[in-house]
C-alpha cells in the first residue's frame, strides 16, 4: 500500500495536465451523482433540512413500513407502474422491429427515405407538446378526435382522459406513435450489416421472401434486440413518468398514478423528503435488480450482454 502510494504522486504529477482536464467532469459526477447517492441515507431518517443528514434522527425502515402497510395507494401505485411498463414492453418494444423489417423490404429507394424521414419526426417533439396535443385532441368538447367520431359514427363524446379505462391505451399508443420510427434506426443498422451473400444463397435455394425475413433478417437483428431489451429493463420502473405527470388528473389516478408521480407529489410538493426518498429508493433497487438479472440471463444464454 505504502509503495503504491509513493508511486502515485509522481504519476499524478507527470500527467497532471490530463488529470486537470478531467477535473470538472469528475466534480460533476461527484456533486450531482454521488452526493445524491449518499443522500439516500435520509430514506432511513426523519430528515429535516435544518438539522441536515448528520443531525437527523435514524429511524431504520420506518418509511418503508409506512409505504407498504399504511399508505392506502401503495399497491395501486406498484400495480400501475408495473402494468404500464409491461404493456409498453409488449406493444412498444416489438413495434420498431416489425417496422424496420417493412422498411427494409421497400424497394423504391426515394420512397423508403421519405417514409423514414417522416417517421423519425415525432421523436423531436417535446413531451409537453405530445401531452398538449393529446389533451387538446382528446377533449370531449372541443377535441378533433371526438368531433371526428361524432361525424363518422355518430358517437357521443368520450372523456378519454377522464376515464381510467382509457389511460393505458393512450399512454402506450402515443409512445408508439412518437418513437416507432426513431426506434428502427439501430435495427436498420443491424440489417445493413448482414452479409448480402446470405440472401443470394437463400434465393438460390428457393427461399421465399418471408423465409428470408424469418431466417436471415430477423436473426441478424437478435443481438441488437437483446441489448435494447436489457437497456429497456434498466429503465423499467421509471419509464415515461414525465409524460404521465402531464397527462394524469384526479379522474384517471386509478390507472395513471405511478410510483414516480407519487414521489414527486410527496417529495417536491409536500416536502416530505425522507418518505419520498424511501419510496424512490424502493423503485431504483427493483430497477437495478431487474437489469442485473436480465443481463446475467442474457449473457449465459446468448453471449451478448451489456457488460
Amino acid at each position, binding site marked *: 500500500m505504502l509503495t503504491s502510494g509513493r508511486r502515485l504522486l509522481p504519476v499524478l504529477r507527470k500527467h497532471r495536465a490530463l488529470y486537470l482536464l478531467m477535473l470538472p467532469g469528475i466534480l460533476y459526477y461527484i456533486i450531482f451523482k454521488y452526493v445524491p*447517492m449518499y443522500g439516500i441515507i435520509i430514506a432511513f431518517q426523519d430528515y429535516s433540512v435544518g438539522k441536515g443528514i448528520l443531525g437527523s434522527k435514524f429511524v431504520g425502515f420506518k418509511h418503508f413500513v409506512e409505504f407498504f402497510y399504511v399508505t392506502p395507494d401503495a399497491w395501486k401505485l406498484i400495480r400501475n407502474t408495473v402494468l404500464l411498463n409491461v404493456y409498453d414492453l409488449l406493444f412498444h418494444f416489438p413495434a420498431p422491429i416489425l417496422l424496420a423489417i417493412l422498411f427494409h423490404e421497400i424497394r423504391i429507394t426515394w420512397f423508403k427515405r421519405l417514409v423514414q*424521414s417522416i417517421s423519425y419526426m415525432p421523436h423531436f417533439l417535446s413531451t409537453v*407538446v405530445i401531452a398538449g396535443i393529446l389533451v387538446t385532441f382528446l377533449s370531449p368538447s372541443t377535441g378533433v378526435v371526438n368531433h371526428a367520431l361524432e361525424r363518422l359514427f355518430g358517437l357521443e363524446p368520450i372523456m378519454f382522459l377522464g376515464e381510467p379505462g382509457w389511460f393505458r391505451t393512450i399512454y402506450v399508443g402515443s409512445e408508439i406513435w412518437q418513437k416507432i420510427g426513431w426506434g428502427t434506426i439501430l435495427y436498420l443498422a443491424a440489417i445493413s450489416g448482414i452479409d448480402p451473400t446470405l440472401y443470394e444463397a437463400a434465393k438460390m435455394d428457393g427461399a421465399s421472401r418471408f423465409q428470408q425475413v424469418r431466417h436471415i433478417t430477423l436473426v441478424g437483428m437478435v443481438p441488437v434486440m437483446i441489448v435494447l431489451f436489457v437497456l429497456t429493463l434498466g429503465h423499467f420502473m421509471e419509464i415515461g413518468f414525465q409524460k404521465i405527470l402531464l397527462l394524469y388528473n384526479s379522474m384517471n389516478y386509478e390507472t395513471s398514478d405511478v410510483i414516480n408521480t407519487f414521489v414527486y407529489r410527496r417529495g417536491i410538493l409536500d416536502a416530505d423528503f425522507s418518505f419520498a426518498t424511501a419510496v424512490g429508493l424502493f423503485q431504483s433497487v427493483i430497477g437495478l435488480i431487474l437489469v442485473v438479472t436480465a443481463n446475467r440471463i442474457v449473457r449465459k444464454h446468448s453471449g451478448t450482454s451489456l457488460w
Partner: protein
Amino acid sequence: MKIKESFGSRLFDAANILFMLLLMAVMVYPMLYVISASVSSNALVASGAVLLWPKGLTTAAYDQLVGNRDVWISYWNTIRYTAVQVALTLLVTAAMAYPLSKKWLPGRRPILLMAAFTLLFGGGMIPTFLVVQKLGLLDSIWAIVLPSLVSTWYLFIMRTFFEALPEELEDAATIDGCNPLQVLLRVVLPLSMPVMATIGLFTAVNQWNSFFDALIYLNDRSLYPLQIMLRNILIAGETVQGEGDLTHLETLKYAMIVIATLPILCVYPFIQKYFVQGAMIGGVKG
C-alpha cells in the same frame, strides 16, 4: 440473374407501400392539424369544423402571442439555457473524454467505472433536488444547466471517437511544445467536428424540449422556459397572462405549439443525418 417475381411477393410489395402511405398519414396528420388549427378561426376549431385544412383564415392567435411579453421572455430563457448548456456540455465532456481515451493513463478504469455505474443506479429525484437546493442553485440558470451537464452516453461516445484518432498527430503537436489542453483544442477538437456536432445537437434538442427540471427548480416566472409556458397554457389550462379575452383560447394553444416547435422542425431536415449517425454510434456500443 432474374427470377420471376411470385404473385405473393408482388402483393406484399403493394400492401407494404399502402401501409407506408398510411403510416405517413398517421405521423403527419397531428402536426398538420396543429398548424391548420393555429391559423383558423377559434369558433370553427372549437365546433369541429376544422378537420384538416384551415377554415376562416386568421392570424389572430399569433398576433396575440407576439404581443405577449411572457412568451418572449420564456423564448429568450430557452435560447439562453440551450446555448449555455450546449457550450458547457461540449467543453466539460470533451475535456473529460480526451484523457479517458488514453489507454495508458493510470486511473482511467476506475473513473470509467464511476461514470458507468451512474447508468445503473442513482440517488433519485429527491436527494438530487436537495443537493441543488443546498448549493443555492434554485431559481437560477445553473439549476437548469448543471444537474444534466454530463451525460455518460455522450462521454462514452466521445471517448470512443477520440480513441480512433491517429495518435501520431497528437505526438507531433506534443513534440512541438503543446500541452494537453492545447493538443485538445488545436488538434483533437478540429478533427472531431462530426461527433461534436452530433452531441451538440442532441444536447440542444434535449434542453429545448425539457420541462421537468424547470418545473421543480424554478419558481420565478421570469425564469420560466418555453416548455413551462406551454405546459401552463396547454395542460394546466391557464390563459396567457394578462389576457382577459378568451375568444382565441383554442387556437392560441395550437399557435403556441407551433411557435415552440418551429425552430426544431425548421432545422430538422438538415440535422437528421447527424442525428441518425449519432444514434448509431451511441446505441450499438454501450
